[in-house]
């Protein structure tokens, strides 16, 4: 019955489960690396997985016959090795031999070697798993359609499984569960001999041991969680996994939270537990005061808008640990709506609010802030945004992480929700060289211009404390009485008021003196042309937009030589580590894929005339596919709320859709012309998304999550379906014209796929998502115009 579409045999189940395990493992690794290090390693993991698949293709090219000789035994062993390595690799990555640290990559050569070792270590499960899949495809060519279908649907299910699993389990456990899935798949190939039984049992013991006793991931020693745990008598009180990021709560007798407290405050600062997401500090939950009661937040620059006037309705976005709620309560706000996307944090806040029964004017909404902003129609007197960077600035570790809350488009939407005299406020730490305050200032000012405020200098003030700058942007110009109130507040708090219109220009820095005159630099942002400042400033301080929502990215590639001259090569990462690491992983994986995929294929004899065409055809497919996948992952973070949901959903849907396309290509194999034109459908959708993706997402973001997931499947699936036609069609054409070129085609496709995931991240940082979508649409022209079978018919 195998070969019939009516039944699904053990082989199909085996392939489906194995595929699910591989994708689940990949996504669990992405999460694990986000916890241990930072988010930018997501691209590295995706590339490593593809490197494993590419290397497997190379192995099959040379050893296919030998491996097929003992197919059942080899399959059993390969899947068993995949299961064992899936279980052991994350544990081995914690060992001092492999554990690298982002911070040390540019100062320690040992860590550079360790990151390479980690790449190879992570590659093993993908290599053996992909070998097993490839071997099955090679063995059961007659049944390839059904097997390919099982492979892609299994992958899709794996992605969805990890999305659900991450609600309940920490990433280390998730890798263990992936290994368990693999073991299930392996048992279906059990040949029944004693040795194989012993191997299976041993493998099972290893997987279960890792699953039950898996060590905790070793978090980078430079993450704030690790530093806090080093304090005397520090205790990890709470830890909870979640796709939005694992939450940790630490207590220590000397742990206090009072972000940039005014020096005029002379009261106590209580010991409070500190909260962390994926090991990064997000502060403490301060006691919620009764309305009008002074709190620690009354002595911070965050209190600026409340010093101007008592707001009626306040909207607090990305509330975090609720410090802005404390400020609003102290500021006698009438009604407070606090939005927090993280369910665990929202739960903590809810419990804390319940402790004070006198507080009855706070509504807590557990949803994505941007989605809430699009859905809600209430007009507010104050919209408060969260603090954007870490204490004293950071080394740009979040450089490639998207932030859709502080963008020109988001700010414009917020202006629409403000009352006539309403205000928007945001605080950031003052960094060196000055970057965050300038980028945020530029974004606010650009948002104001876009909204229609012609003289934003009359609407904006900045309050500078010893470490922070708070912006307050008012819908109507600041009145002189309001400025006087602010001056009084600043004098009491020992802050400095910076105003930007001529009438108040006599106000200058008094209490907090820095080398860089922040006020002067921010003033330059009001120039409508802005060409001078943006061009001449040695960091990228261009306003953040939905198309380039990289608030923490400042490095300009053209100024790298200058920065290197000043800081030295080991010093540049202090300015922006995250972006440089993306480049570094791109270089490492580029080298690795040359050695593991491309170089071995040069040994093959291939037809010269088809070789370059093949390169263009399959290279374009590898590049285009990964560009689309990465851009969708980034765009849907905005839509689905976080990177885990977005990565899982996009990878699952695109695989299922392109798998369906590939299957259909098989049915239409006699009509090659039609199949060759299929990528045109993908191009049409990609061009349409270039023009309309963001508006579509913005206008449907308020819908329930499940509806958004369905819309995601449609948006991702439609081009994915047409994209799926090109690969089997290309292989079919090669099979007819030049079958000896197939390994070369496979290798080129893998090579471009490996480097394109990191390259897509870099290109979107430099030029924006829309530009990368357009590039992918352009490269999909190649499969249409290149004919790999120009009339010559060779033996198949």
């Amino acid at each position, binding site marked *: 019955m195998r070969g019939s579409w009516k039944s699904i045999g053990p082989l199909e189940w085996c392939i489906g489960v194995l595929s699910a395990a591989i994708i689940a493992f990949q996504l669990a690794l992405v999460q694990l690396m986000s916890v241990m290090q930072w988010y930018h390693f997501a691209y590295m993991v995706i590339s490593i997985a593809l490197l494993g698949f590419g290397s497997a293709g190379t192995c099959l090219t040379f050893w296919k016959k030998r491996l097929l000789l003992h197919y059942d035994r080899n399959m059993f062993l390969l899947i068993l090795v995949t299961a064992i390595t899936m279980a052991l690799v994350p544990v081995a990555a914690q060992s001092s031999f492999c554990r690298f640290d982002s911070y040390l990559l540019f100062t320690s050569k040992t860590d550079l070697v360790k990151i390479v070792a980690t790449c190879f270590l992570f590659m093993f499960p993908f290599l053996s798993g992909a070998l097993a899949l490839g071997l099955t495809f090679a063995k059961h060519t007659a049944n390839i359609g059904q097997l390919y279908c099982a492979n892609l649907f299994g992958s899709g299910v794996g992605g969805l499984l990890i999305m659900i699993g991450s609600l309940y389990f920490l990433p280390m456990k998730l890798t263990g569960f992936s290994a368990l899935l693999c073991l299930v798949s392996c048992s279906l190939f059990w040949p029944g001999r004693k040795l194989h039984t012993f191997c299976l049992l041993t493998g099972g013991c290893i997987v279960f041991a890792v699953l039950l006793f898996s060590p905790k991931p070793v978090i980078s020693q*430079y993450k704030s969680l690790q530093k806090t745990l080093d304090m005397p008598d520090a205790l990890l009180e709470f830890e909870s996994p979640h796709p939005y990021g694992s939450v940790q709560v630490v207590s220590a007798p000397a742990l206090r939270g009072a972000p940039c407290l005014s020096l005029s405050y002379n009261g106590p600062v209580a010991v409070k537990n500190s909260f962390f997401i994926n090991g990064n500090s997000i502060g403490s939950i301060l006691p919620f005061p009764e309305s009008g009661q002074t709190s620690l937040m009354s002595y911070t620059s965050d209190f600026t808008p409340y010093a101007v006037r008592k707001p009626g309705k306040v909207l607090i976005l990305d509330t975090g640990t609720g410090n802005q709620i404390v400020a609003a309560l102290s500021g006698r706000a009438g009604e407070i709506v606090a939005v927090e996307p993280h369910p665990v944090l929202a739960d903590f806040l809810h419990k804390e609010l319940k402790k004070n029964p006198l507080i009855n004017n706070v509504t807590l909404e557990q949803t994505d802030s941007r989605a809430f902003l699009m859905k809600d129609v209430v007009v507010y007197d104050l919209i408060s945004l969260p603090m954007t960077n870490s204490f004293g600035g950071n*080394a740009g570790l979040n450089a490639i992480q998207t932030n859709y809350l502080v963008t020109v488009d988001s700010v414009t939407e917020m202006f629409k929700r403000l009352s006539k005299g309403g205000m928007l406020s945001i605080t950031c730490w003052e960094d060196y060289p000055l970057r965050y305050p300038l980028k945020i200032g530029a974004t606010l000012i650009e948002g104001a211009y876009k909204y229609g405020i012609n003289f934003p200098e009359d609407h904006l003030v900045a309050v500078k404390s010893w470490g922070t700058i708070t912006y307050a942007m008012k819908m109507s110009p600041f009145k002189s009485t309001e400025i006087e109130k602010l001056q009084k507040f600043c004098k009491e708090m020992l802050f400095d008021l910076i105003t930007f219109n001529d009438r108040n220009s006599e106000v200058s820095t008094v209490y907090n003196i820095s080398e860089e005159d922040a006020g002067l630099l921010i003033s330059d942002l009001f120039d409508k042309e802005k060409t001078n400042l943006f061009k*001449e400033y040695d960091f990228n301080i261009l306003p953040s937009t939905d198309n380039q929502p990289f608030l923490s990215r400042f490095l300009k590639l053209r100024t790298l030589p200058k920065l290197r001259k*000043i800081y030295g090569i080991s010093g540049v990462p202090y300015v922006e580590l995250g972006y440089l690491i993306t480049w570094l992983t791109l*270089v490492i994986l*580029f080298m690795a894929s040359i050695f593991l995929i491309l170089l071995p294929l040069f040994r093959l004899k291939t037809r010269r005339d088809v070789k370059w065409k093949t390169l263009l055809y399959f290279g374009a497919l590898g590049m285009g596919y990964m560009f689309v996948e990465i851009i969708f992952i980034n765009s849907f973070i905005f839509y689905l709320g976080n990177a885990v949901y977005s990565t899982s959903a996009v990878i699952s849907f695109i695989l299922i859709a392109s798998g369906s396309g590939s299957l259909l290509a098989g049915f239409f194999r006699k009509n090659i012309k039609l199949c060759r034109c299929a990528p045109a459908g993908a191009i049409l959708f990609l061009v349409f998304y270039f023009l309309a993706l963001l508006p579509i997402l913005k206008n449907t973001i308020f819908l329930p999550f499940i509806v958004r997931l369905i819309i995601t499947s449609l948006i991702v699936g439609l081009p994915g379906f047409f994209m799926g036609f090109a690969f089997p069609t290309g292989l079919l054409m090669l099979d007819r014209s030049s079958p000896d070129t197939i390994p070369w085609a496979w290798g080129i496709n893998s090579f471009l796929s490996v480097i394109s995931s990191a390259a897509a991240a870099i290109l979107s940082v430099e030029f924006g998502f829309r530009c990368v979508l357009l590039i992918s649409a352009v490269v999909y022209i190649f499969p249409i115009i290149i004919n790999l079978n120009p009339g010559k018919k060779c033996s198949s």
Partner: protein
Amino acid sequence: MQNKHLKVLPTFMIIIFSLLFPLLANTKQSLTNVVFASQEKRIWPVQEAQLWQTESDSAVHTGIMPIAANDYSKQREKMVETQIEGRGVKHQATLISMKMVERHRFIPKNIESQAYADRPLPIGYGQTISQPYIVAYMTEKLEPKAKETVLEIGTGSGYQAAVLANIVKEVYTIEIVPELGKTAKERLKVLGYDNVHIKTADGYFGWNEHAPFDNIIVTCAAGYIPPPLIKQLKDGGKMIIPVGTPFSIQWLMMVEKDGEDIITRKLIPVRFVPFRRSK
């Protein structure tokens, strides 16, 4: 065609390696007083310094060391001349004190030979002894005088306290890690610094019994400046404190109390090279 590729590939690899090499090379450059070459002549110098780094390369044994046969006096002289005076520290009392304090007695014996190197060194419990220049710079900026009392938050090895003790009347120093506090106390006692008083406690509260202080020196960064420390600072007194997270470019900040007003002044940006910590 295949041969052509085989010829091209090594050339290609060499190009890639040559592009990579500068990135991988770990050459440190002197960063002091480098003018940022922008059109506006914006100056962004950063001191390549290490102050309270919390990592070590190897296992560290703390404890009082026996008096070494080598007193490292020549190395000490050279350290002051090149690393401190050479970088512009002019405060005579500071220079004399830096020449007097035997830095090698404040570090673990296994790294004693590196005592006078231009870098911080691990002292155990995730703490380090600061780079000599930073100790001197912070001391100079406080302009300590003979009759004054100084409060230090973060004793560590006790080296900074010893440098101050040679200049001022009394030094009060607080260490949060009990083991470090105990070792530093014994070490300073053996070395004869009887005007240094150490207690193991949370530095947040300062040392109220001996307040007010003429100067306060804090050697760890926090997101806030503890109010008790401001309260315990004399009118006209100065506090020096670092601002920023590790591995960012941080500021050394001066807080000056002038009656009701408190002025903060960011002094120099510094960057702190991370080391791997052994656990």
